[in-house]
């Protein structure tokens, strides 16, 4: 298993956001997480690279238990890429410098070596001509593609996406989803929190429906979208589809 989550609980103060999540994600699998806002789906994703401290339960990434206090979390994070809703590019660094920072500082590559990693990735996300500009001059869709390239530069085994298209103008969503589709085709293991039901249906191998801090229902997309069993799933899908 690439990712195993066992009885994951997460509280913020007295508010319990995750109330016991169990999930297994296989290598090369693309799992989409859907659900209403406040259902805990982003928190769940952020627990997978310990951006949120886990209250109780286990999160195993390729067998490494993140809740073990002795775990080297920086090493694990370099294997798990994360793409954020608001891109979080580094505004004081050029596009190229955004991408090479991790390889240089975490992996110890030289500037030239890191550049050799970064340029093909920029090409892959269709932004070769933007290497030397600063993020502020990019559109939202371009920013998100740079953010994806930045994560890929660490050669991660898993990619986490936290509502990657929610902050984009509708006409820019397509380019980002295209890049994600290519990644899925190449066999990247992906967990995608999304409101793009079309993407989940087309690209997802499995869809998790979360509500009230638990996984209410999970299935292959055709079943979950075509024939949902749980009344909460039915209600949610009737509103968004």
């Amino acid at each position, binding site marked *: 298993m690439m990712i195993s989550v066992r009885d994951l609980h997460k509280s913020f103060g007295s508010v319990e956001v995750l109330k016991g999540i169990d999930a297994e994600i296989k290598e090369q699998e693309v799992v989409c997480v859907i659900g209403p806002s406040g259902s805990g789906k982003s928190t769940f994703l952020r627990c997978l690279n310990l951006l949120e401290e886990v209250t109780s339960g286990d999160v195993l990434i390729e067998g490494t238990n993140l809740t073990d206090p002795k775990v080297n979390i920086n090493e694990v994070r370099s294997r798990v890429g*994360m793409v954020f809703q608001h891109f979080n590019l*580094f505004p004081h660094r050029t596009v190229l410098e955004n991408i090479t920072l991790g390889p240089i500082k975490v992996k110890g590559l030289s500037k030239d070596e890191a550049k050799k990693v970064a340029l093909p990735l920029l090409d892959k996300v269709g932004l070769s001509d933007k290497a030397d500009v600063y993020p502020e001059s990019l559109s939202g869709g371009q920013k998100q593609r740079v953010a994806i390239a930045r994560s890929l530069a660490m050669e991660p085994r898993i990619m986490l996406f936290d509502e990657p298209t929610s902050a984009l103008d509708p006409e820019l969503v397509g380019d980002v989803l295209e890049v994600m589709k290519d990644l899925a085709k190449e066999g990247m293991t992906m967990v995608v929190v999304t409101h793009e039901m079309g993407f989940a249906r087309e690209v997802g191998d499995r869809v998790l429906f979360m509500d009230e801090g638990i996984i209410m229902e999970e299935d292959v997309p055709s079943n979950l979208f075509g024939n949902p069993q749980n009344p909460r799933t039915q209600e949610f899908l009737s509103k968004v589809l």
Partner: protein
Amino acid sequence: MDFITQSHYYRVMPMLLEGLVWTLLITGIGLIFGFILGAIFGFARLSKSKIIYGIATVYVEVVRGTPILAQILFIYFGLSDLMGVNIDKITASIIAIAINAGAYIAEIVRGAVYSIDKGQEEAGRSIGLTRNQTMRYIIWPQAFRRMIPPLGNQFVISLKDTSLFSVIAVGELLYMGQQYYGSTFAAFEALTMVCIMYLVITVPTAVYLRRVERRLDV
């Protein structure tokens, strides 16, 4: 030309220029140490450790809650008395500026670091950077840019504060002016020139800072 060279406005200048050199020296060296103190205590104010946070908070509140005039007297007379050694006036002045400005700079540093979007840290950590690397390569460079206008402002404040050191007879700008009218009785002329000398430094600084601020504002 005699009426110019004979006037007090002209004759006070050599003394005032000497005073200005000391004013700038005390401000400059004091602020270098003040910035170091401010950075240390600013980060301490962001610490999760209650003890470190507590110590830094006490420092900031004590300094900001007492007049700088009391602070300089405390350092020059109080500490000399306590330790039984004489502290040099200039040294005492530099220490006073450093400690005083340090507390205000600590708040500038804290505020600037705090103002950087949390997502920046998360992005840094999620590519595997350590906490320190994230601070050094991502948060600090961005925070530092935001510190420039308030730091410049602090420079102007500290520069003016050095005039208080005239009470311990430090030969800074205001004191030199006082010395001049003490012997010539030309208080109006001397103090006019003293004020002009301060303005020669503070006004261009303020104008420059406004320009920087506008550029950072985009």
